[in-house]
């Protein structure tokens, strides 16, 4: 157990270093730089001398390894640097936007899990017309562009029927009902595609499990089909589904940026896009660091779920 923990910590730390170092490298080779971005936003025109002075102020005239080292030193002190334009600490920027992003992502994964596994189980159990109908509905969710679905949902449920707000975000600590209301349409939008993936994965895994001999034995013992499917088979079919859920969550971290824009949710994805265009390196690196932490945490949860679902993994 101790060895596994140490291994996990070491691999997570290595991943964090690789991702943040890559962020530095990629930002430095992208066209433009923060110095010209700041000067053009402030005054529009600037001289080469002003650019050099600004680059010196920002430390951009230092070698890349030195700047990365300085960032790591700040990290050791609990700081992710400050926004190059406003001076706001990156930790504050992330703190303000993490909950909206995670609300969207985790909410989507939860909804997709519940609906996707149910659809997949129904499809595997019933087969025939019902199974094919479930397949078509799932695929529709995958095929429909999320931005189009978002606009349709907003027009119907927000503008015409006034059931939900068209966007924005309410902190659940201030108003739980408001938070649910603002999250409903974006989560439904993002879930549509994820449900299709999970339903398909669940159906395939369930089909394999339901063909196993021990299932035949359970039927022979007189257990109800519902009990066989949901109590015995689903548990064994869940492992590949759990893998899919982990991948879905990770992809949603950055994939939700379009939905964040349409629903004007103050998320990290949207902030990262703006920071990238501005070459705002501290913000970009801080968000990349945060996303990587979410990824390693997700992997840990997935591993723990494997152990809970599969005794063989638990004892290996």
């Amino acid at each position, binding site marked *: 157990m101790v060895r596994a923990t140490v291994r996990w910590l070491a691999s997570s730390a290595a991943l964090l270093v690789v991702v943040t170092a890559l962020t530095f490298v990629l930002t430095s080779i992208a066209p433009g730089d923060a110095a010209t971005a700041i000067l053009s936003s*402030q005054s529009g025109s600037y001289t080469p001398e002003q650019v050099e002075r600004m680059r010196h102020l920002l430390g951009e005239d230092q070698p890349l390894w030195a700047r990365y080292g300085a960032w790591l030193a700040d990290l050791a002190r609990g700081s992710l640097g400050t926004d190059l334009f406003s001076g706001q600490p990156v930790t504050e920027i992330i703190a303000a936007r993490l909950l909206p992003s995670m609300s969207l992502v985790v909410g989507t994964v939860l909804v997709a899990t519940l609906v996707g596994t149910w659809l997949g189980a129904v499809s595997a159990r019933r087969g025939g017309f019902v199974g094919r109908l479930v397949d078509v509905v799932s695929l529709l969710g995958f095929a429909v562009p999320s931005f189009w679905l978002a606009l349709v949902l907003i027009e119907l449920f927000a503008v015409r029927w006034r059931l939900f707000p068209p966007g924005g975000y309410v902190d659940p600590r201030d108003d739980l009902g408001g938070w649910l209301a603002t999250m409903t349409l974006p989560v439904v939008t993002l879930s549509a595609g994820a449900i299709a993936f999970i339903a398909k994965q669940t159906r395939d895994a369930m089909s394999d499990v339901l063909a196993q001999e021990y299932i035949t034995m359970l039927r022979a013992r007189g257990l109800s089909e519902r009990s066989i499917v949901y109590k015995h088979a689903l548990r064994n079919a869940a492992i590949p589904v759990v893998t899919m859920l982990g991948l879905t969550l990770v992809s949603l971290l950055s994939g939700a940026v379009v939905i964040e824009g349409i629903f004007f949710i103050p998320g990290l994805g949207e902030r990262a896009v703006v920071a990238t265009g501005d070459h705002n390196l501290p913000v970009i690196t801080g968000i990349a660091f945060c996303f990587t932490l979410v990824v390693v945490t997700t992997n840990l949860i997935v591993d723990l779920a494997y152990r809970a679902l599969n005794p063989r993994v638990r004892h290996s």
Partner: protein
Amino acid sequence: MRTGRWRNALTVALVAGLVLAGCARPETDRQGDDRTLTVVSVIAPQTLDPAKTAQNNAWLEQLAYEPLIVRRSDGTLRPGLAESWHYEGDDNTTFVLTLREGVRFSDGSELTAQTVVDHLTYVVEAGGQMAPFLAGNTFTAVDDRTVRITAPAPNPDFPVILTQDYIIGGVIGPAGLADPSILGTTTVGAGPYMLDPAQTVAGDHYTYVPNPHYYDPSAVHWDTVVIRIITNPQSVLNALRTGQADVAVGDPATVTAAEQAGLTVASALFLWSGVVLADRDGTMVPALADVRVRQALNYATDRQAIADALFAGIGSPAHQVTVPDGYGYNESLANAYPYDVDAARELLAQAGYPDGFSLAIVTPQYQQLNLIAQALAQQWAQIGVDLQITDYANANQYAAEAFGGQFPAFMTAFGHIPIWMQGPSLFLPDAAFNPFKNVDPTLQALYDEAARASEAERPERDRAVIEYLTTQAWFVPVVMTGLPYYARDTVSGIRTSAQEPLLSLYEIVPAN
């Protein structure tokens, strides 16, 4: 049994969640007695520092930083933090302000003439977008309430520069001037409101609450003002239609939908959109050095077609870098470059480019500038000009490359402003919109004459400047539009005019 218990628990949770979500009305359909004003801006500020922020962030600044002089919606000026002002002498170089008594900043500190001097000095030193309007000036605190500004050259537009439209007239308090690093994320002003950082998420929404030290409490109409940043035009419209917002900066693409939705739409002609032919010396594209080539591009532009296609009902052809009733507008040049492909080809041939040439251009995506560029590419192809478009969704990236001189031409939307102010921004050697630093002695002389002119003579001098820019074809103005604003019927005071096309937050009051 266990399965049934779990299923029941899940069902209860689902129903409870739906009930909570359905019962909640966080921001929609607010009633008339709600004293929260929500306005939508489409561009997020990179900083809240008044000396460094861009002009399009004026709303975020005017709430907390009342300017020395306030421009009303009809274009007339009224006292702000200054109760009176005048020029000394007749050469427009010395401007004197008398400050209002009893003004305090949001932290309780007093407004004095020295504070104003320190503020103006900081504005110049910070080197922001508006700094050139005050560069080289001397600022003096004559006494505790009197400030004298002495300019090295005539400046007839001090009163306009010091209004809320250009932000820098909004005085920063001593605490902010002592530590400007705090100004990026908080406010230290003497305006009717102040920023509440605890209720603010930078880049998403900015919450303002009343300034307890404001000198005129009767002018504070709202308990809270929220400025929300929404970049998607359809999302802006949805926010208004559902009551999540009261007022918004509109977009030409959604004006018709806004009118159909029953929203108030206020718009006064303000912007000309078109091409800045920056490389007039021919450094990157030799052809642009010839005035005949630049005129040819103007003749090859079917402005009416672009206006009809992209700005139906809200835009009209522009031939000058100003608008009707705007500064320097010449009635005689209203149709300076009628669409004439043959004339364009003839001019190109005379200039030695019968087969045309290639021209790289950079454009942002706001105000449909990228779509105008695409239309121009098709039109100019008829005269052999191959327009190669670089299109940036990130406005800062576009600005860095356009103003950095990386392209011989760039698209822009430019508001009509006084000619004296237009020079340092648009066409003088150090102007941001003149990245190749073109120098033209004739233009400089015309500009200087206008700066020295008396108030009676200035309109004619301004027209001479615009006429020169038009005949020399420094630009290809394509279409002029207003800056539309949308509002719900819960508010009133939504007024703009040709003299003040920018909506002032000071005049917005509850409808009841």
